[in-house]
């Protein structure tokens, strides 16, 4: 994540944020362990198989799903294919650049992908048309439009919301259209460490002064499906352990509030 590249944050401001955190307060009035209220608008791009615009504070991302026929991987002839790509568009932040994906956007896409893949969100075995020859390929593409922190959770939420409303275009293969079979709902919760506080769903300012980021993705059974520690910095085991508990709790809340089946 860019660290103070726009020169917004003075040392004074940083100290102010930390002092406030010690009192349990954040700049936008949240407590350290609360998530910004997401706004989710599904079917934003009707021409896609599914789509969702998600805003998390001033962070905004748009996930679009395309589903096309193609060949399975040779080692998984009886499964559809899932691919996830994130474009950190230069429109979203002054220092984001056009061009091949950076390490940051690759990590982002892969963490989102792992949550969905290991969360068994879809049963890929239901996406086979002809074993070994023809399967449905599900392309998750996510545009980052506006960046104010915590892209991993915004993108995971957008991807899952878009998948939930997706339709497989069976009619293009002389079959019937059918709703994409979505079984599990993974939710990722990301925290950063500022001073010795664990801060949930950081905004950009908080990311810039943090040391260490941890993401935990869970499913409705409370199981952990993916974790990723990122950035320079470290966590104790107790911090990780409590991050997992926080993710389980917030995951449940988000799932019930925004991703009800």
């Amino acid at each position, binding site marked *: 994540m860019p660290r103070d590249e726009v020169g917004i944050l003075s040392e004074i401001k940083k100290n102010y944020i930390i002092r406030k955190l010690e009192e349990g307060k954040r700049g936008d009035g949240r407590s350290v362990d609360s998530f910004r209220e997401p706004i989710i608008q599904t079917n934003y*791009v009707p*021409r896609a198989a599914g789509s969702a615009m998600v805003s998390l504070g001033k962070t905004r991302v748009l996930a*679009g*799903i395309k589903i096309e026929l193609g060949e399975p991987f040779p080692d998984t002839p009886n499964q559809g294919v899932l691919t996830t790509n994130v474009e950190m568009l230069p429109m979203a932040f002054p220092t984001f650049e056009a061009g091949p994906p950076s390490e940051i956007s690759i990590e982002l896409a892969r963490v989102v992908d792992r949550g969905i893949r290991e969360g068994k969100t879809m049963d890929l075995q239901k996406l086979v048309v002809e074993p070994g020859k023809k399967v449905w390929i599900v*392309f998750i*593409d996510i*545009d980052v439009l506006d960046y104010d922190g915590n892209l991993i959770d915004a993108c995971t939420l957008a991807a899952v919301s878009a998948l939930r409303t997706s339709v497989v275009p069976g009619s293009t293969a002389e079959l019937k259209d059918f709703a994409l079979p979505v079984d599990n709902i993974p939710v990722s919760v990301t925290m950063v460490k500022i001073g010795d506080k664990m801060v949930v769903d950081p905004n950009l300012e908080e990311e810039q002064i943090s040391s260490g980021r941890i993401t935990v993705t869970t499913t409705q059974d409370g199981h952990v499906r993916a974790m990723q520690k990122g950035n320079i910095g470290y966590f104790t085991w107790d911090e990780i352990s409590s991050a997992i508990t926080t993710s389980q709790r917030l995951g449940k809340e988000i799932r019930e509030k925004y991703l009800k089946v």
Partner: protein
Amino acid sequence: MGTASDIKLIGDDGLRLDGRGLDELRPIKMEINVLNRADGSSYIEWGGNKIMVAVYGPREAYPKHNQDINKAFVRARYNMAAFSVDERKRPGPDRRSQEISKVLSEALESAIMTELFPRTQIDVFIEVLQADAGTRIAGLTASSIAVAAAGIPMRDLVVGCTAGKAGGKVVLDLSKDEDNFGEADLPIAVLARSKKIVLMQMDGDMTLEEIDQAHSMIFSATDRIYQIQREALESKYTVDASQWGE
């Protein structure tokens, strides 16, 4: 233009497949300041097109050998989201989008008072979220108000429209079917009041007379679209995420 087809683009009632008259525009909506991080931004819906624009700058031109000591240079980047078209588009620029980026950059630079900002660049990022024919003109029309929203002085707003030929008739604001199966496509963009042409492309088959007729339709349409641009700028619409899209 598209391949021959038996598709009948103009009905017996003289109307087009989507029910429009020959010189009727599709619905158009614009907003500004839809993004927080950019210096200026806008969003346009034009028929089924949905396009987001962000402007950054004037900022120091980079790399340095790109700096012009006499003026800013304008770099528009037109990009289609992977999910914006029927068949998934591989991310990254292709030849078509690079050509469009060039003509949009030139059209905007023709309107912006670049001489006020030597050694800088002005970036205009145009992201097509859903494509439905006429994206370059819709993107340019939205770019122009995003530049204005960024507080960058322009001689005039840039506003455009396409016309073309479909089913043997000259028609305004081609639909996707007309774009695919019609006879000609003619996008034009002008400085809103003086009608000086800053973008023009054409492909297909038209006579001089047909082009003349098409240009009149477009010039007249740009007055209507300019009105929508001004309303968007005046309402200084501030984003309310609950209202996107609809």
